[in-house]
């Protein structure tokens, strides 16, 4: 009971579980603890909301830059040198 009480009133643990839940499935116990905490803690409820929005935005940023990167090309001089180097290795 002591452990449960500690988690239910502990925002540090609750926010850890909020992050964990976005990446993996919580254990039954963890999920009950988090639900009870969130029912009574408006600050962590707000944190939960913000945390999800932030994850979405970060992900969008990653996708945008990955999109940009997918069109990146090497310059022709570098490519020529590289192929020459490969040919050299092959002829060794």
């Amino acid at each position, binding site marked *: 009971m002591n452990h449960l009480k*500690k988690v239910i*009133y*502990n*925002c*540090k*643990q609750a*926010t*850890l579980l909020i*992050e*964990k839940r976005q*990446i*993996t499935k919580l254990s039954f116990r963890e999920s009950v603890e988090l639900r009870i905490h969130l029912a009574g803690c408006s*600050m*962590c409820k*707000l*944190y939960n*909301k*913000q*945390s999800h*929005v*932030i*994850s*979405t*935005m*970060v*992900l*969008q*940023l*990653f996708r945008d*830059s*990955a999109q940009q*990167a*997918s*069109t*990146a*090309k*090497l310059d022709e001089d*570098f*490519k020529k040198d*590289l*192929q020459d*180097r*490969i*040919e050299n*290795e*092959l002829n060794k």
Partner: protein
Amino acid sequence: MTTENQLLNPHKWVDTHADYLYAYTISRLNNEELAKDLVQETFLAALQRASQFEGKSSERTWLTAILKNKIVDVYRKKSSGLNNVTEKQAEDEQKDFFDEDTGHWNDSNRPLPFGIEDQDPLRGKEFNHILQLCMQKLPTLWMSVFTMKHMDDATTELICTELRVSQANFWVIIHRAKLSLRACLQKNWI
């Protein structure tokens, strides 16, 4: 070349795969010079290992696998030596966020609404700029974890193994990164 690696054609490697491998690296490391080096190293390592190619996968898949290992090496190097420090640091820094005894939010760091809660999160360049600045303050290890997770859909177990981070440490790092990121946004976006 011997019969067992008849599918490899190194004379065409650069033409066929160099741009693909380069873009693959840029999207994961975002560093042009480093990306060039890794593409070159990948081809050279592939030549050395050509006899091990069994033709079970395509040439491109095989080259990409070699490159991927090199990228993970970079992730690991960037965050090596930091692992133990990171966990302790994270614990220390969390004292800024939470009361050490009760685990309650400290007054100075508790979440306040700052305008991202109810609207569409895609709110233009200005916010993205602040987000990027705040993300730069996060540890390299976090960036590596995030990239592996979302670009390669890696499992937590795989990420921990490849980056040599314990599971407990993994969650501490994720937790701390989000706390810092959220606090940084709240501070700079009001």
